[in-house]
């Protein structure tokens, strides 16, 4: 779960929760912080700046991305990188921006009063996603994510995928037939 703290420039938490309510929920994992136009992850020293989408929307997108393709071995930054393209596209395409902003707003309404990120269990959030999985919004996010997440070379070793092998001479001397447990 990700908790959004209200930034100093006065961005409202999407769900309209008070800071006190947010704190009451506690956090699991690293907390994301909205600051200005960025989503920050102080614990892991990364920030994602938004240009078109609201930073709050981006923070929800990061949670949404994890709920669509949950891998407990992957840190939030990989999901943040994966959805960054939505912000870029929203900057060039007003219709796409509306699709994403409206889609996130709709999710928050469905998850009222606490909003989508306010739901503590993945199952609670996924129940809402099952209701919207046929929508253009969900399809746009998932369709992009299946490439933008799994095509990050940095995550391949986490899954035991070694990627390019030609420069290493293939696997002829590196274990193409090394299975021993059979």
């Amino acid at each position, binding site marked *: 779960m990700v908790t959004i703290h209200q930034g100093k420039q006065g961005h409202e938490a999407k769900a309209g929760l008070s800071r006190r309510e947010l704190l009451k929920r506690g956090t699991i994992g690293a907390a994301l912080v909205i600051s200005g136009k960025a989503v920050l992850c102080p614990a892991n020293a990364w920030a994602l700046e938004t240009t078109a989408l609201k930073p709050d929307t981006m923070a929800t997108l990061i949670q949404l991305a994890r*709920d*669509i*393709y*949950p*891998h407990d*071995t992957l840190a939030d930054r990989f999901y943040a990188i994966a959805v960054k393209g939505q912000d870029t596209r929203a900057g060039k395409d007003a219709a796409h921006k509306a699709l994403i902003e409206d889609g996130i707003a709709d999710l928050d309404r469905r998850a009222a009063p606490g909003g989508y990120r306010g739901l503590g269990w*993945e199952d609670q959030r*996924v129940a809402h*996603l099952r209701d919207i*999985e046929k929508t253009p919004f969900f399809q746009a996010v*998932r369709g992009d994510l*299946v*490439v933008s*997440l*799994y*095509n990050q070379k940095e995550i*391949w070793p986490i*899954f*035991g*995928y*070694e*990627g*390019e*092998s*030609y*420069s290493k*001479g*293939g*696997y*002829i001397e*590196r*274990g*193409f*037939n*090394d*299975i021993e*447990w*059979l």
Partner: protein
Amino acid sequence: MAAPYDLKDDSVVVIIGSGAGGGTLGNELAQKGIDVVVLEAGKRIEYDEFINDEWDSFAQLAWLDHRTTGGGWRVSKDFPNLPAWIVKAVGGTTTHWAGASLRFQEHEFKTLTHYGKVEGANLLDWPITLAELEPYYARAEDKMGVTRTNGIEGLPGNNNFKILKAGADKLGYKECHTGNMAINSADRDDRMSCQQTGFCFQGCKWGAKWSTLYTEIPKGEATGKLEVRPQSHVIRIEHDTSGKVTGVVYADKDGKIHEQKARIVAVAGNSIESPRLLLNSASSMFPDGLANSSGQVGKNYMRHTTGSVYAVFEKPVHMYRGTTMAGIIRDEARHDPSRGFVGGYELETLSLGLPFMAAFLDPGGWGRSFTSALDNYANMAGMWIVGEDMPQEQNAVKLHAELKDQYGMPVPDVWFTDHANDDAMRNHAYKQGEALYAAVGAIRSFPTPPYPSTHNLGTNRMSEKAKDGVVNKWGQTHDIKNLFVSDGSQFTTGGAENPTLTIVSLAIRQAEYIAKEMSSGSI
């Protein structure tokens, strides 16, 4: 050394496409001293430029011109603009193919005879027999360096094969080995041996896998009788008032339109583009398209009954290491209707890298059920099902009624729905595949739906009688003597086997026929 031919030179044989059919035909004709111009829609990308990266390679090689698809198959829903995963580049889909090189079985040339009438299927016997094709299979196997033929050793088995073999033994399958692969197991034909790199589908960076790109084409060019013109996208075939074809109109890389005159035209653009081109060449004399008096151009589109089974084990497999498809079980390829379907299927090793596994394991899938499969990627083994599908007249490559390509020509609209026989076969194969992996300790298995088609067949089919098909036993169109079809669209039925070896064999045979007819002056 490559001979540049004049656009007005009407003595040349023009071949459209440079893959297994077109590239082979071009070299075979050039070796006989015949002047050949090969027009290839894609770029010339040499093998050292191939990319060991699934999406980057896809962008480099795949045919991504606009296409649409419909019908009951799941691909039309999951990949509405990607009915087929084939290549636009010199060498065509021989850059991307896995190398499996199997001969058809005797009965597969005579399916109507052996299977009888199957309701809803448009079965027909080929006008040729296995015996007629055998000498050409032998020449193709030698040309391509197929393992387990011509004294060529089999490839060593990788981890994915070892799992397949152990499971095959447990299930009592008898014919399981590392395949008949057009991939060098030792240096041969000035090409090096397989380095177990994986990425066979992304183009072999060693040149160990046979592709017309670095075998047939340079050999043909070395004769001075073959010119390959890349980035030359043919949009129409022209004919004269006698009904003979006279040349082809194509767009070059800048979109400039040219006409190349020709004595003979051979169409080898794969089973989507070839019928599309014939249909798009309609004229007042041939209002339904060229060579279409039968109405069969574009019909009977086949794509093999496919599917995959992936399974997760307790311990690592690393299935992506090594030759992708060097592993086969042939026991189910027989025709045995007691299984509840006609025809048969092969089981072949297969793997995808993580990016493509995510895209193809369960297209559209998400959530823990999906991601927990990928979490075990390193412990996964995989196999591909490839079996005979039923030709059906309504499965067809049509011209889209509204959408046009960059040259103003209607885009292809690919319609496919599985026949009940296809479904029964696939379900049988899923069951066998899952049982095989369970027998060697699989924890979970995944019956994975068909990918966009790699084996596209049948849309200009071969027939004894002109009313039943588009081409005769030589691939010559029934209607137009100097117009040939030289790719898998000639296939009357699909067999259970990967089609490339048969395409190459037919092209060698067709070259002999064309040379003979040219010297006798009949064409």
